């Protein structure tokens, strides 16, 4: 495990060193962004709609019983933007995009395409890792913004149409505006950017480490997804601790 973390940090360092070459990889970066957005936007919105809805459904009736319906918007709004949207979207993207990246680079490793790049003096970190890392770091926060908006809407729909809660849209969004400010949104976006780097790095690292044939590719994909999710959840705690300073 420590060896893996060391290798991940080394890959991160090499990718940061490659940043000056980022302009030359713009076309590939945009292609990757398009692929990530195209593959995930609809799924992210559906997921967020139901997460917002469930959140309102779990908290709403309890709050309504105690005459605290004025807090539903705040609870749904804050939970989504500070915690659920960044974490759930990161888990979704680790499964959807991290796995695809690990499989693609893994198959390039197994079929000697990476060796071919090296013999042509083309650095695989510049050519493959950098555009993917830039694309996922730009795309995940954007997806999280969509998830927050759609999640809030999901919470609103449940809060309005569930007979046990039954508040107005206006009351829900007034409560949400009172409880959520731009720093809370920023909090979620910082988290999502860190998670994006983790997903991209783990996926590329596993892909480059692939050995063996198709079975090796499968193993890399599984490890990429599982390791990303574990790291996301552990980092989430420490990031939350660090970002609490933003609220003060």
């Amino acid at each position, binding site marked *: 495990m420590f060896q893996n973390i060391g290798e991940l940090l080394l890959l991160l360092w090499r990718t940061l060193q490659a940043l000056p070459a980022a302009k030359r990889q713009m076309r590939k970066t945009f292609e990757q962004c398009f692929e990530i957005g195209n593959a995930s936007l609809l799924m992210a919105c559906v997921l967020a709609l139901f997460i917002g809805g469930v959140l309102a459904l779990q908290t709403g009736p309890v709050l309504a019983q105690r005459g605290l319906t004025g807090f539903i918007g705040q609870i749904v709004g804050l939970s989504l933007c500070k915690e659920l949207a960044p974490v759930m979207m990161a888990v979704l993207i680790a499964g959807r995009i991290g796995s695809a990246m690990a499989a693609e680079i893994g198959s390039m490793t197994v079929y000697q395409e990476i060796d071919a*790049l090296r013999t042509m003096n*083309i650095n695989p970190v510049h050519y493959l890792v950098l555009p993917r890392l830039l694309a996922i770091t730009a795309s995940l926060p954007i997806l999280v913004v969509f998830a927050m908006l759609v999640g809030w809407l999901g919470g609103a729909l449940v809060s309005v149409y569930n007979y046990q809660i039954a508040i107005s849209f206006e009351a829900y969004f007034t409560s949400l505006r009172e409880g959520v400010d731009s720093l809370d949104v920023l909090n979620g976006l910082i988290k999502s950017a860190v998670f994006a780097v983790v997903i991209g790095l783990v996926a590329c690292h596993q892909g480059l480490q692939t050995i063996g044939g198709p079975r090796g590719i499968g193993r890399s994909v599984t490890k990429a997804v599982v390791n990303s999710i574990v790291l996301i959840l552990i980092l989430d705690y420490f990031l939350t601790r660090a970002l609490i300073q933003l609220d003060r």
Partner: protein
Amino acid sequence: MNHGHHRGVSIQVRNLQKSYHGQAILKGLTFEVQRGEIFAIMGPSGSGKTVLLKHLIGLETPDAGEILVEGESVQAPGVMDRYRMAMVFQSGALLSSLSVGENVGLYLSEHRLKPPAEIARIVSAALELVGLNGAEDKMPAELSGGMRKRVSIARALVIEPQLLFYDEPTSELDPLMAVTVGEEILRLNRRLQVTSIIVTHDRDLALGIAHRIALIHQGEIVSVSSPDEIRANPHPLLRRFLTADFRFDTETTHL
């Protein structure tokens, strides 16, 4: 990058050793390849030929020993910038997400050595040379194994290397195309004085175009000699390797 400089480079291998999981694959190989030489490496499957090739181009790090390109270690930083090297992989190793044209022009486009129109012209000429005119827009998945190999050769030609490695360049090719590829290796060697190292099972290719042939067996060099010397060498392994053929006696074929 070293553009105008097309002369081949020399390569020295000293006591090269490599083991995988405790099993010795290369057991202290020592040999030298001269500038502009065509050097063939032959040997039975599993004798360590491809592993040796990967070490020579710097894809693998040896456990012991060294590989020197013009006196500099192949692992030293900047060696790949100073000397142009290329490798024709056995499987082709084309990037499956790029078209044939993009694959062949990848070195020039990634290193920004030529404008796009010039790259397109060079790519087209290289593909014509390997008999694949107009294949620029095809994807590697649409090609046969032999065609992929030819694209890989075209990709190496575009680099105009000083040191060119071929891993089984004639496998999966029909006899006519194999001869064409052999001629092309020879022509490139004469035109640019490129040093060529060929790993092959193809006895006709090695004896036909190589200046010297190394025979490897179980990770050790059995002999390094010219084709004429090899033909005259009485070493039993060499004799077996050079004379094995498909002419079975009638009893065997009727089993």
